[in-house]
């Protein structure tokens, strides 16, 4: 099933510039994007404009609508949702829409696919483009049919006269493959939600039939004629990207050490970059394993992470005051009761099931890379820097990959493939080993949060003081650092402020106590390679906020949900809390009520609420989510079993209810896994969690019952759902464990040994 090289399709950039018939060449997941390896023309602008209808959609002479979106589908089904949005505004059937995602030669640069922003942000110009195109086409049809526009109606891409449906014309014949030449944002009205027939429906995902039958979908499955297999050998400091641990530590490579392996084509060495290329995959793998490489030892070594709280506290960081309202110090001093607590979050992994993979073809002065990246346009620039070539000689085509949930090694391996392909002038496929993916993926950051709070005599919050530290960077493409093209000096990532503001703070509407509110985020250069992982800093921050709210509720002798509602000014937030409580059959009472001393297994329930606030501070919000969860805790073994999770979510307009529900399920299961089981381990050389035995994740027998309440608000804008339901998870579980046992878990993961130790402390 090798890919056939075929005639170069009409170039989209050429189409944009000069018009002419559009050949819709790609889009179906079973078809290969950019199948042609033919050299690309060089005269187009470096970045596709994102301000015209033509940037986002084209209608072919065959009536097929092609949608171009700069975001990509990370396995969430957003490809289908985008098709629904465009099909709706254009009044075509969904079967007539192909969606092209993340091809730097065809799709505009809409930034990386992060922050659950595809539907909330990236889809907006697509929708407007579709509305403009529809208005234009209806006007054309009115001329063509010689009737006033008001008498026309559109269905399935055919414009017809309302009282004489036979009098009609198809979009295809009105467009005849020409460009629209319409600017954006235009003023064409978009449909009212009450008119929706496709948006809001559980349209089946277009990609699933290919995925369940093994059709070509994933970048891992791409085979080009003459393709070789590459593997890389990384320095022996997994996950450490700081000089002098990497950058200039290679001592020697003994090329003779792999002479006995058949079909080895080349060994490529540049700085600390070491790669091997072979005709067959298993031989490339073996060559990478058996190649004798000597490295200078890293004498300084990694800080001791065995006591994470101490390690984070001692790590140099710089405070950034996000909010300092009222007088927190005096308000705490004069509070009737005051509390403080510290919450710890470990380094965690994206843990993609497939290791990252890419195929590159660097030949004839052009570089084409097929990649599972989140950010094709950024990757394109990084590849140009790596190969030291102009950006416009590089093309990145995004193909599907194993779910990434943030920044994994997808970009790194694209660099590896390009670097190796250039060395041999043939296409090279590189797939990372499991150990390299686990070791080098930029981790979800460790985090430490100190919270202080006070209660007044009425049991209301009197002051709130929140201080969060997180150790994350931006994770530059690794080959750029290994080759020495960029210095191995990690940059500071300020995303630690995500959802650092308490949900109960509202400058104008919250209870008076929450107006004595100080919030500080501490930014730091990370000691190990880290970037963003689903929920980013919001998940640890909300673990602290919502655990602490529970501690305050207990101190106030109040029911946990009632206590929250007393302080919450946000009506949509209150609505999800009430909806979750109602579905769960929440009984109003304070926690903890004492446990049967004779029972080994004790049960409890917990709630938490959060809205994922992201992007540069103060940022903006994705969906509102509340959790109620039930746990059974074995006091003898320390084992926590999550038995039931009720999630209520408000994401405004729901584009595809199945898609949204599946994202809730995914967030719930993945976050339970992270909270109960997951922590990356280190020694002085770096990451030691290098396989699934060392980094276990949740398995089928441990998956709870999940009930989802979706609050449908079709008149409200659609908000991101990719991460929102992860955010309240840890606190809901910790609060449920407290309700069952009376112990407060303030460090993730809630392992059996940690729970047992806490239970022993209690006695």
């Amino acid at each position, binding site marked *: 099933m090798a890919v056939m090289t075929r005639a170069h399709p009409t170039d989209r950039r050429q189409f944009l510039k000069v018009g002419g018939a559009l050949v819709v060449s790609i889009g179906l997941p079973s078809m290969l994007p950019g199948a042609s390896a033919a050299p690309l023309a060089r005269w187009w602008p470096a970045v596709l404009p994102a301000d015209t209808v033509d940037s986002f959609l084209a209608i072919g002479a065959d009536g097929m609508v092609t949608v171009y979106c700069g975001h990509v589908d990370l*396995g969430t089904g957003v490809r289908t949702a985008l098709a629904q949005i465009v099909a709706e505004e254009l009044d075509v059937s969904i079967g007539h829409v192909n969606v092209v995602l993340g091809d730097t030669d065809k799709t505009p640069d809409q930034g990386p696919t992060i922050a659950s922003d595809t539907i909330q942000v990236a889809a907006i110009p697509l929708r407007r483009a579709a509305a403009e195109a529809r208005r234009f086409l209806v006007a054309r049809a009115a001329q063509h049919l010689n009737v006033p526009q008001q008498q026309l109606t559109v269905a399935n891409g055919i414009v017809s006269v309302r009282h004489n449906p036979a009098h009609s014309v198809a979009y295809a014949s009105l467009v005849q493959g020409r460009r629209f030449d319409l600017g954006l944002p235009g003023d064409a009205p978009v449909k009212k939600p009450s008119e929706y027939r496709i948006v809001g429906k559980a349209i089946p995902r277009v990609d699933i039939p290919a995925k369940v*039958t093994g059709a070509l979908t994933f970048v891992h499955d791409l085979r080009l004629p003459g393709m070789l297999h590459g593997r890389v050998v990384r320095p022996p400091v997994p996950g450490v990207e700081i000089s002098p641990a990497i950058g200039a530590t290679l001592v020697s490579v003994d090329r003779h050490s792999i002479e006995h392996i058949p079909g080895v084509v080349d060994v490529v060495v540049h700085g600390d970059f070491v790669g091997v290329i072979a005709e067959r995959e298993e031989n490339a793998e073996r060559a990478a394993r058996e190649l004798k490489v000597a490295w200078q030892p890293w004498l300084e070594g990694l800080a001791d992470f065995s006591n994470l709280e101490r390690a984070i506290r001692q790590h140099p960081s710089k405070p950034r005051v996000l909010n300092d309202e009222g007088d927190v110090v005096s308000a705490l001093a004069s509070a009737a009761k005051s509390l403080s607590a510290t919450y710890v979050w470990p380094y965690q992994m994206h843990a993609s099931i497939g290791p990252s993979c890419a195929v590159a073809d660097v030949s004839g002065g052009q570089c084409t890379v097929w990649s599972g990246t989140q950010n094709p346009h950024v990757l394109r620039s990084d590849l140009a820097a790596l190969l030291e070539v102009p950006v416009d000689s590089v093309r990145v085509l995004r193909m599907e990959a194993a779910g990434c949930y943030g920044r994994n090694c997808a970009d790194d391996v694209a660099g590896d493939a390009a670097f190796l392909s250039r060395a041999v002038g043939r296409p090279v496929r590189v797939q990372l080993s499991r150990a390299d993916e686990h070791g080098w993926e930029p981790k979800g950051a460790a985090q430490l949060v100190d919270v202080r709070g006070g209660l007044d005599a009425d049991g209301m919050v009197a002051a709130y003081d929140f201080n969060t530290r997180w150790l994350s960077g931006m994770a530059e493409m690794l080959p750029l650092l290994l080759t020495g093209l960029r210095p191995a000096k990690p940059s500071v990532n300020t995303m630690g402020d995500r959802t650092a503001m308490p949900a109960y703070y509202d400058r104008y509407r919250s209870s008076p106590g929450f107006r004595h509110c100080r919030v500080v985020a501490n930014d730091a250069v990370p000691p190990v390679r880290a970037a963003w992982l689903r929920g980013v800093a919001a998940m640890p921050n909300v673990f602290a906020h919502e655990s602490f709210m529970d501690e305050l509720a207990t101190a106030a002798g109040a029911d946990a949900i009632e206590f929250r509602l007393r302080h919450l000014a946000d009506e949509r937030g209150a609505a999800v809390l009430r909806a979750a409580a109602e579905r769960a059959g929440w009984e109003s009472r304070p926690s903890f009520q004492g446990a049967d001393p004779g029972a080994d297994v004790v049960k409890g329930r917990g709630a938490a609420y959060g809205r994922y606030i992201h992007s540069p501070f103060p940022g903006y919000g994705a969906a509102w989510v509340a959790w109620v969860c039930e746990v059974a805790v074995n006091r003898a073994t320390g084992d926590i079993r999550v038995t039931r999770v009720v999630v209520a979510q408000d994401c405004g307009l729901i584009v595809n209810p199945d898609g949204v529900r*599946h994202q809730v399920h995914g967030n719930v299961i993945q976050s339970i896994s992270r909270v109960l089981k997951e922590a990356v381990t280190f020694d002085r050389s770096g990451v030691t969690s290098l396989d699934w035995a060392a980094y276990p994740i949740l398995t089928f027998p441990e998956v709870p019952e999940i009930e989802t309440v979706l609050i449908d608000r079709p008149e409200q804008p659609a908000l991101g759902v990719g991460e929102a339901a992860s955010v309240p998870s840890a606190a809901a579980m910790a609060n449920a464990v407290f309700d069952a046992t009376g112990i407060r878990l303030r460090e993730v993961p809630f392992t059996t040994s940690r729970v047992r130790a806490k239970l022993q402390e209690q006695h």
Partner: protein
Amino acid sequence: MTMRIAFTVNGHDQALEVEAETPLLYVLRDDLHLNAPKFGCGAAQCGACTVIMNGRAIRSCVMPMAAAANARITTLEGLGTAEDPHPIQRAFIDEQAAQCGYCTNGMIMTAKALLDRHPNPTEQQIRAALAGNLCRCGTHIEILAAVRRAAEARRTDRWP
């Protein structure tokens, strides 16, 4: 040292000159161009590479070719196509039981082997059978529903 190894894949006889220790997975993917079995870990820990060999679900990433000689192997491609899916593939489509879909091959092949042995599995049996198959997207709820639906189909419909 290469050797000539004959085996049957999806009903077709195959014979290849290959090194004895080459993992079956690489032969299926790189020589026979079958995409469905996936490399996940190379250590039989995740299940993405699962195929059915002589009626049992096995991990092809650690199965040396020498051990696959004369074996009868079925991959996901051998079940059905997008146009004419096997009932178990149909069930996964109907339940929308994939997010990224990288683990899907292993889920379907493991469930197929289970249902061929136990046509009426309990919920606990299904979960136990899939316990060694990792899914990171959290598609477990839909996968379990798909396997239950497939079990129902096995009782009532054509089941090749």
